[in-house]
């Protein structure tokens, strides 16, 4: 079960005609899909579209009522291939993932889908993970649209516009026999807003209809000679159809201004922030009335030449607000205007930065430069208006601020089962020296950050083992690859483990099995052990690994650090030649707590005997070296002022968020750290025996303690 439950929110998916929907952008997309009569949906979770998958998973009942098929796909490639159903049948389908990483994975299927063309509407909803908060390398989805001839929608971050984009996306797809991509930036996915709903539509054509009367058309198969015909069709039929549709349906917006000799072209997704920047420059008001004409591209590929000619004709200068690089739109626009002899001067990446997110601050600076150069009178007309663009200089110099305010990188959660594993890896490297560690995508990626600082490269989801391939067969010290269970099922089983078997690697792959696709929000995967009425879990990683031919497989529980260390040492020193796999198990603590906490609360309330464990540090014996923190980094293990007036270094301290996972004790033991840690076992609803024992112990211990105290009190100063 996912980290966040949408059980309550999914009820708004049932809203009928004319009702008001309130919620997150990504939920609005889900509602729009149902309003559009989608027949099947698939995808792979990942910020910022994880919630779309979670909502759909929680909406299984509603989907069933409507006859919509929903899958949590094994990977983005699986999801993209699912759209094949729309090639032969007039059936609407949608898939979703995090872009560009997911789009990279899906590209094989997407390229073939785009070549074949579709009959039913095929919509690809992409969470564009770019800018602040992104967790991936910085690239644009735009390139995929261009290379495969798919259309790219970039709606305004405003719920009614997003919903309209979903609906027209299907229509565009069907009108042009082309898959359509709908990209949503991170904040647009999470933006809270409202829109007026329509009733859900049952899919007009269902899977059963397809299976009852299968349709086949060789011209849709991506083999020659069809592929040549398909390429021609893309350019000669589908592209012109798309240009017609976009223009006729007025998918892009022309917003008039006070002046007509300059203008701004912008991506739809940047509309709100651009308008705010203009407002701060006194060139627009709160409601979007603007002094400078705008051409808002809600469809960023293909570009419609006539629209560009229309907008740019008669203008001295036009600024293109296009986020990311390369500046595809700017390049294409220059070509369009050149071919049509439109003399307007195009500006873009010369006043705005080539790289990075276009925050309002960035836009404000770029727009100020553009307006200052081409239409300074627009800002001079109202001298009375407050000069809002002037940012007050902080009283404290930037360098001092940077030195004073500590960075706060992400890290493993309190009680994370991966913590003891990486602590063990750290201790292991102290013993045997540094290792080459090929890291992977997942929560375990955080091990590349302090305090663990390990991992030499990350090649992509499930590619940890593959990333060690070139180093896998050398003699001497063995390379270590780390992979999560999510990445393992995504592709690591074949790309990493199968490959290592076949190519006779001699390295070690550790598969961190926390039971979920934890980093994306705790979704279930094939090896998940928690009960799930809609999915078939409990397919063990061990069986899968053995199935592809690994002979050396060991399992260890991460909280058994000594055991983990032993098996790690063995894997790196054994005479056995061939790939070695260690499955390091420990359930994701977020999921575990979600399950265990209510049960414990209930048991305590019901008067049952419950023992709750948590850890603590004796400040008197802690010397403030913080070795324990460097081996753990647990959020609940922190420091506080040293109560000892003779010492200045802060002492370690376990705060109240401790879940008693046990790693502190394990680390103290495995690293021979210090005797300051203790575990407290709190007893709720003690039994009679508990009380009796406690009284006996209290009496004996109390007597001994009193005797010692008396001795000590002889010498009071």
């Amino acid at each position, binding site marked *: 079960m996912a980290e966040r439950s949408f059980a309550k929110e999914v009820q708004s998916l049932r809203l009928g005609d004319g009702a008001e929907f309130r919620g997150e952008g990504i939920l609005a997309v889900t509602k729009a899909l149902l309003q559009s009569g989608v027949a099947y949906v698939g995808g792979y979770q990942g910020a910022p579209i994880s919630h779309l998958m979670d909502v759909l998973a929680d909406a299984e009942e509603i989907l069933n009522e409507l006859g919509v098929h929903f899958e949590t796909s094994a990977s983005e490639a699986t999801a993209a291939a699912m759209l094949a159903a729309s090639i032969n049948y007039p059936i609407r389908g949608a898939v979703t993932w995090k872009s560009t990483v997911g789009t990279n994975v899906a590209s094989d299927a997407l390229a073939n889908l785009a070549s074949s063309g579709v009959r039913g509407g095929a919509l690809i909803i992409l969470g564009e993970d770019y800018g602040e908060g992104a967790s991936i390398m910085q690239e644009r989805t735009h390139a995929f649209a261009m290379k495969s001839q798919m259309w790219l929608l970039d709606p305004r971050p405003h719920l009614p516009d997003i919903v309209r984009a979903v609906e027209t996306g299907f229509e565009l797809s069907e009108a042009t026999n082309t898959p359509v991509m709908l990209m949503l930036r991170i904040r647009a996915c999470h933006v809270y807003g409202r829109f007026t709903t329509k009733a859900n539509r049952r899919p007009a054509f269902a899977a059963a209809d397809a299976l009852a009367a299968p349709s086949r058309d060789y011209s849709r198969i991506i083999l020659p000679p069809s592929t040549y015909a398909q390429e021609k069709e893309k350019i000669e039929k589908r592209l012109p159809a798309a240009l017609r549709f976009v223009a006729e349906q007025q998918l892009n917006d022309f917003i008039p201004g006070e002046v007509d000799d300059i203008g701004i072209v912008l991506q739809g997704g940047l509309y709100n922030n651009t308008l705010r920047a203009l407002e701060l420059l006194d060139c627009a008001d709160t409601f979007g009335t603007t002094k400078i004409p705008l051409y808002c591209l809600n469809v960023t590929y293909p570009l419609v030449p006539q629209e560009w000619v229309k907008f740019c004709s008669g203008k001295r200068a036009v600024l293109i607000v296009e986020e990311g690089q390369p500046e595809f739109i700017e390049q294409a626009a220059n070509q369009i205007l050149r071919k049509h002899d439109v003399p307007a001067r195009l500006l873009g990446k010369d006043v705005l930065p080539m790289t990075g997110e276009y925050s309002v601050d960035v836009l404000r600076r770029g727009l100020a430069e553009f307006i200052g150069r081409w239409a300074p009178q627009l800002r001079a007309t109202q001298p009375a208006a407050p000069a809002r663009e002037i940012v007050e200089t902080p009283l404290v110099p930037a360098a001092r601020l940077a030195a004073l305010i500590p960075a706060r990188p992400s890290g493993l959660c309190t009680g994370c089962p991966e913590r003891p594993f990486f602590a063990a890896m750290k201790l292991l490297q102290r013993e045997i020296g540094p290792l080459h560690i090929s890291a992977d995508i997942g929560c375990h990626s955080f091990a590349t950050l302090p305090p663990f600082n390990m991992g030499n490269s990350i090649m992509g989801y499930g590619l940890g083992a593959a990333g060690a391939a070139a180093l896998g067969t050398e003699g001497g010290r063995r390379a270590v690859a780390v992979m999560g269970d999510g990445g393992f099922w995504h592709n690591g089983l074949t790309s990493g483990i199968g490959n290592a078997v076949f190519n006779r690697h001699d390295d070690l792959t550790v598969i961190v099995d926390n039971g979920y696709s934890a980093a994306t929000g705790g979704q279930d995967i094939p090896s998940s052990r928690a009960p799930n009425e809609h999915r078939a879990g409990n397919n063990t990683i061990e069986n899968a690994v053995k199935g592809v031919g690994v002979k050396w497989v060991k399992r260890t529980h991460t909280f058994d650090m000594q055991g983990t260390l032993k098996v790690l040492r063995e894997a790196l020193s054994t005479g056995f030649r061939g790939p070695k796999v260690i499955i390091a198990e420990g359930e994701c603590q977020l999921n575990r707590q979600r399950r265990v906490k209510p049960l414990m609360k209930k048991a305590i309330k019901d008067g049952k005997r419950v023992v709750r464990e948590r850890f603590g540090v004796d400040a008197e014996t802690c010397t403030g070296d913080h070795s324990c923190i460097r081996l753990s980094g647990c959020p609940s293990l922190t420091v506080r002022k040293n109560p000892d007036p003779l010492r200045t270094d802060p002492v370690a301290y376990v705060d109240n968020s401790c879940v008693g996972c046990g790693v502190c004790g394990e680390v103290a033991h495995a690293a021979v750290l210090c005797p300051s840690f*203790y575990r407290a076992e709190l007893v709720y609803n003690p039994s009679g025996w508990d009380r009796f024992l406690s009284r006996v112990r209290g009496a004996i211990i109390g007597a001994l303690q009193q005797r010692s105290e008396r001795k000590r009190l002889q010498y009071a100063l």
Partner: protein
Amino acid sequence: MPSERPIKLTIAALGGQGGGVLANWLIGIAESEGYIAQTTSVPGVAQRTGATIYYLEFFPQAAATAAGRDPIMALMPVSGDVDCVLASELAEAGRAIQRGLVTRDRTTLIASSHRSYSISEKSAMGDGAADENQLIELVGSQSKRLILFDMEALAEQHQSVISSVMLGALGGSGVLPFRKAAFEAAIKKGGIAVKTNLAAFEDAYQRAFTGGDGGRATQAEAAATGELSEVPTQARSPKLQPLLDRVRRFAVPVQKTALEGVRRAIDYQDPAYAALYLDRVEKVAALDAKQDGGSDGQWSLTEAAARGLALWMTFEDTIRVADLKTRPARFVRVRAEIRADAGQLFGITEFMKPRVVEMAGTLPAGLGRWVLRSPGASSFLTRFTGGRHVRTGTVSGFLMLHILGGMKRWRRGTLRYQEENGRIEQWLGRIAGLAGTNYALAVELARAQRLVKGYGETHERGWRNFSTLVEKVDELAVRPDGAALFARLVAAALADEEGKALARELAELSSLAVVKVALERARA
């Protein structure tokens, strides 16, 4: 183009602090009060304990209706254009200032004055925490209005969560044009822990209404812990009056430290041990007197030696650890720390992992040395090493520690004692040698005691670093900048576990020496 503008609010929080819950409450409140509301965030991986920001805008529905259009709301805060920043932690308030979100012409800054340390701060080998007073000074200087108090403490006091307190502080600040009842309704509608959340909300509302405490409670708390106590004129036990009199004969800047040293030596061993402590400090003080207590008359050398000596002479051997773990005060402290309810039963499990070295250290010196030399004896003892879980709340567990703690009467004969005692004498000898020639370096050497701390490998690393530095003393003693260089070496030794920084500094020092020698030769 003037038109009514939205109210802009930024919530700066840490992953897992409930920033999302707070944002949702505010959306509900705003809508119930006739406002159009928008919120966005970039959760993603920042949710996992990192710094994260929620951004909200509110706009009166009436104004939108009058205009016949909805306002265009931005998706992120803009520097210089935020009406209110609500920060759940002190450094996050600082970060909001760093990002330019807090400005003196418009921003009300509402922040909790407590600290949640980042990994870099808490994993430092010494004190890596950001300066709290500087942070408080910073947040106090940058905003139009500041409401600062310890929201975490308040949340805890009401057994609530910090998001309820933050909501209360926001309500009480009056920044938003929403009625108090609307805030309370949002909490009630949430339906979770309504009673405690409302109590926390109310308390925070009142505190914010009166402007908070400017972080004074946090500052006071920081200053209060670890304060040395005043020196009395009369010892509580008359037998100890001679020791107290000796303490009182020291220069004033040394007295408090020496008193603490005496107390600790008695607690650790006995009054005779405290007398030994005083003998040693007096020797240093005599040398210090020849220097008139240093150039500033602060008796820095004696003070540093008294402090270092108090800690070194009460080194944490197994006997000491067992003694401290069995005291009644400790049981009381644990009860408070684990938040056990009144009268609730609890057990304590200690994690001990004695190694052969520690076992031999507790044996009589001769026997201990023999054990360490004899492979047979060592390997025999190995059987008893390894992780031990000692349950101090049980009679057997307590007895074991109690007996071990009681062994302090034989401590002076143990191997560990003799080793440490030798090291202490050597260190004091070095200090004495330097006092007359390079006072500043002698002070630094006295302070360097703090390198030797911890247990097991940590202690060994500390001792190794300390020894390396002591070797450099002669070389540095002749240099006028010797003390500063030594202090740099100490800082480097505390910079990283692997000793990289120290190695770098040492290499630089020796290359400097080479250059110096070369220069002198050239001059000659």
